[in-house]
C-alpha cells in the first residue's frame, strides 16, 4: 500500500490531480472511521474527513516520502476533529482534565458529565452502545482509545500521529481504559 501511495503522491505532485482519487480510495475508510468515532455525527464526520483529504492535498508538497503517509494523514484528520470538538464543548469539560491529571480516582469527573438515563443506555444495541461509550470519553482519551482499539495502531504510531511522547500516549490509554471501565461498571 505504501509503495502505491508514494507512486500516486509523486504523480499528484507532478500535476496529475486525478491520481489523488486513488489515494482517497485507499484511505477513505480509515479516515472516515476516525472522524465518525471522534465526532459521533455522520454529517460532521463526512465534512471533516473530506476536509482532511483536501488539506493533505494542498500540503502534499510538505509530506516526506520516507515517512508513512497514513501517519501524516491521520494526524491531519485527528487535529481537525479535535479542533471541531473544542469549538463545541463547554469550558468546564476542559477544566475537569486539568484537575484530574494525577491519580486514578478522578475518572468520573473526566468523562462527560451528562450521560443519558441508565434505562436508555441499557436499551441500546451493542454497536450503538460502543459508539455512545466512546463518545462519553473526553477528547484526549477518546482519541487514543480509537487509534489503539478501533484502528489497531501501535503506541509508537499513535505517538507520531498525535505528536506527543510515547509515555504520554501510555498514560492517556491507561486513563482512557479506566474511564471506560468506570462508565461500564456504573451500570
Amino acid at each position, binding site marked *: 500500500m505504501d509503495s502505491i501511495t508514494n507512486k500516486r503522491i509523486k504523480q499528484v505532485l507532478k500535476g496529475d490531480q486525478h491520481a*489523488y482519487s486513488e489515494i*482517497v480510495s485507499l484511505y477513505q475508510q480509515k479516515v472516515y472511521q476516525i472522524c465518525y468515532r471522534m465526532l459521533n455525527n455522520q454529517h460532521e464526520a463526512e465534512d471533516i474527513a473530506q476536509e482532511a483529504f483536501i488539506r493533505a*492535498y494542498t500540503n502534499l508538497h510538505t509530506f516526506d516520502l520516507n515517512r508513512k503517509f497514513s501517519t501524516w494523514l491521520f494526524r491531519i484528520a485527528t487535529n481537525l476533529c479535535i479542533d471541531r470538538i473544542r469549538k463545541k464543548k463547554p469550558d468546564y469539560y476542559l477544566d475537569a482534565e486539568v484537575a484530574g491529571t494525577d491519580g486514578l480516582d478522578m475518572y468520573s469527573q473526566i468523562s462527560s458529565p451528562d450521560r443519558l438515563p441508565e434505562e436508555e443506555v441499557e436499551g441500546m444495541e451493542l454497536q450503538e452502545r460502543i*459508539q455512545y*461509550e466512546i463518545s462519553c470519553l473526553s477528547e484526549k482519551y477518546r482519541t487514543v*482509545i480509537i487509534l489503539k482499539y478501533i484502528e489497531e495502531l501501535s503506541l509508537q504510531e499513535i505517538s507520531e500521529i498525535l505528536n506527543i511522547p510515547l509515555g504520554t500516549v501510555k498514560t492517556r*490509554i491507561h486513563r482512557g*481504559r479506566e474511564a471506560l*471501565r468506570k462508565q*461500564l461498571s456504573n451500570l
Partner: protein
Amino acid sequence: MNTCPKEIVQYMHEYLDGDIASEHEQELQKHLYNCSDCRKHMQELENTIAFVKGAIAIATPPRFVDQVMQRLPRRKMKYGFQRFIRRHPIAIAAALFCIFMSASFLSGYKNDQQFSYTKQPNLQVEGQTVIVPEGETIKGDLLVKNGDILVKGAVDGDITVINGKYMASSANVTGQIEEIDEMFEWLWYKIKNSAKKAWSIIDNNE
C-alpha cells in the same frame, strides 16, 4: 483495595500494553492471586477492551471519493500555460503569429470586452454577476465574460470565467472550473478550444 500497593493498577496497564517487566509481572500475579478486588479490577479492564474491540468497521458514505475530488482546489491555468510555452517554444511562437495576424482574433478580442454569459434558464443576474440560485441545477457548460459567477446551487458541466471571478457557496460543479483573467490566458483558451486537434498532432510528433 485501599490497602493494595499503589503500583498494582499501573502494572495492570503495563500488562495490558504488552510491555511489562518480568518482576512487575510476578508481583502483579502474586497480588491478583491474593486480592479479589484487584482481580475484579483486572477483569473489568479486560472486558472493557473486548467491548471496544467489538466495534464493527464503519463504512464510508457513498460518493465520498467524488466529493473530495470535487472539493479539491483548482489547479492554476497559468502553470499549465507557462509549462506549455517552455516545452513548445517554436510551436507557440508560430501559433501566436498566426492567431495575432488573423482579423477574427483581433475583432474577437475587442468584442469580448462586454459583459456576457451563456444563456441558461434559471440563471439570475445582478449587475455584472451571474448567479446560479440555491436549489437550481444548471445542465450544461457556463461561460461568463467580463463578469463574475456565484454558484449557490449546482452546475452539471464546466464553468469558464473570462476577466472575472468564480465564487461558490456550495462548490457543486461537476465539470472543470477555469478563471481566465489575462489576455494571454484568454488566448490560451482560444487555442485550446479552436485548435485542440492541431496541438495534439504536435504533441504526438515529439
